[in-house]
């Protein structure tokens, strides 16, 4: 398949089942909201080495915002509800409760499975915390030095999909990074997905395992241009000198498909000889996203 002059490899991305939660963060202004969301979703690129995978899903309008203030919707993914709950409480406690003027709300109110949030964080109030039920939802008001930290009692958790991806191979590093930037911007406009790596782009794509026993993953040598001549089989296009991977986590299969499609459509063009995808031979992941199918 050729798209805007770019070859679309006949391969697939392999993705996994994960649990996710959606946390809505609000603050006095857009800058503080962004700061809070950035801190909350920091150090959350890959479950290989982080407690969660996280990112900003979207900015919400005043009407969508639970309290009418500038708001961000964030998604947090983990392998189990238990692991996710631990990461959530730690991150919210250290990065949201500490951040000036923030409030935290559940973005999955319909979900039956719940994770404690304010239920745990309230104890920081040392007995001065107060609960407040508005509508059918319980919030905690924890007294802090700039007023009150308002946090929802629990947040919903649901089944999501993590590990959707595309690999963009560029003639030059600039061409590849520009294409990756376009792809991430296109994905950012879609609901229900995040790109958890820095700027949404991965330069250190990984393969499973390593020659060093302590490591679970190691560099994806098949796509490293500087060792093209040393590896048994390079996967790089002959005209490419650089590759970037866009990893996508989403709330369901449809959102991953839509994001991969948007990424490929935005990235394809001059300077990008091929768009590929990463997989493990179909043996590890439950979900396979064939590039040709998502672009059909």
């Amino acid at each position, binding site marked *: 398949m050729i798209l805007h002059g770019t070859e679309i490899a006949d391969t697939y991305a392999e993705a996994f089942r994960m649990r996710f939660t959606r946390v809505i963060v*609000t603050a006095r202004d857009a800058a503080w909201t962004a700061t809070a969301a950035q801190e909350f979703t920091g150090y959350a690129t890959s479950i290989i080495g982080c407690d969660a995978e996280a990112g900003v899903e979207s900015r919400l309008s005043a009407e969508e915002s*639970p*309290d*009418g*203030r500038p708001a961000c919707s964030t998604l947090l993914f983990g392998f189990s509800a238990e692991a996710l709950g631990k990461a959530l409480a730690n991150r919210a406690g250290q990065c949201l409760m500490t951040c000036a003027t923030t*409030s935290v709300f559940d973005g999955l109110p319909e979900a039956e499975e719940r994770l404690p949030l304010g239920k745990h964080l309230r104890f920081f109030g040392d007995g001065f915390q*107060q*609960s*407040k*039920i*508005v*509508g059918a939802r319980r*919030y905690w*008001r924890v007294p802090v030095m700039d*007023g*009150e930290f*308002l946090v929802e009692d629990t947040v919903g958790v649901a089944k999501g999909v993590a590990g959707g991806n595309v690999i963009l191979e560029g003639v030059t590093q600039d061409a590849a990074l520009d294409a990756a930037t376009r792809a991430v911007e296109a994905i950012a406009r879609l609901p229900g997905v995040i790109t958890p790596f820095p700027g949404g782009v991965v330069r250190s794509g990984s393969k499973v395992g390593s020659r060093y026993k302590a490591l679970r993953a190691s560099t994806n040598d098949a796509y490293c241009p500087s060792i093209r001549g040393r590896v048994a089989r390079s996967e790089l296009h002959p005209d490419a000198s650089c590759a970037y991977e866009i990893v996508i986590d989403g709330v369901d299969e449809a959102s991953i498909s839509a994001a991969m499609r948007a990424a490929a459509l935005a990235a394809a063009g001059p300077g990008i000889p091929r768009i590929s995808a990463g997989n493990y031979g179909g043996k590890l992941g439950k979900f396979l996203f064939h590039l040709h199918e998502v672009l059909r």
Partner: protein
Amino acid sequence: MSGWSLTWKGRSPPDGWVDGSPIRPDLLGKAAIADVRAARIRVGAGERRLDDLYDVVPLENTGEDAFLRVDGSARYLGLGRGMERGVLEVIGDGGEHVGAGLRGGEIRVTGSAGEGAGAEMESGLLRIAGSAGAGLGGPVPGKTRGMRGGEIFVGGSAGTEAGLALRRGLIAIAGDAGPLAGHWMRAGTILVGSGKLSQPGLGLRRGTIIALGGAAVPPGYARNGPVHPVWLRLVARRLRGAHFDAMAQRLAQGNAFESWSGDLLSLGRGEILIPA
């Protein structure tokens, strides 16, 4: 998506008190017309068929799963008592104890309500376009625990002891409220739109009284100073609708409130908020 309209025969209610507790959309809204007409209702010391009192007319396309529209009267007792779902629309006054023990659904009263409206409510929405009498959302006589959940919106004023022994839920009054609002309140929120509250929150253990028209704060309260409670913005979102838009706007703007903690003669974990 259908229901029933119950209009007084002869355009006026009967003499004597009418037990409104069988008038519930969850009981009658989907019943066959013969069953609706044959339903029993107490009037004074006796019992009558529903169609002795009302003209029963089917309604189409009400947009609700279970819907009942009924003529109002100040002589009802316990209209919609214990209702669990559906919509009960009262054209006129709701009488005494309208919506008492409400467990779900919505009651809309286009007129006013007497004493004990929403008493011991557990969930759902009671909307009174006019005013409400004493003991709004309080306990029924002889009991000690008031409303346990749900929301009451009063477009006019409320009588004495609004939110008496309130345990949970929201009571919003667009107008003023009589003395002793939030008396012995356990938790929950009372919002009063205008008029200076007299003796609010006596014996308040937890919960919040928001007095937009000011309040004579009782001696058992300690001043905290100005605060900007974000959670009031959430309350503002619940208030959208008739009579409450201006009030919602005041809460949503993030204005400062004078905060008072109390009643320190009781548990002391409640608060009174007054616009600064």
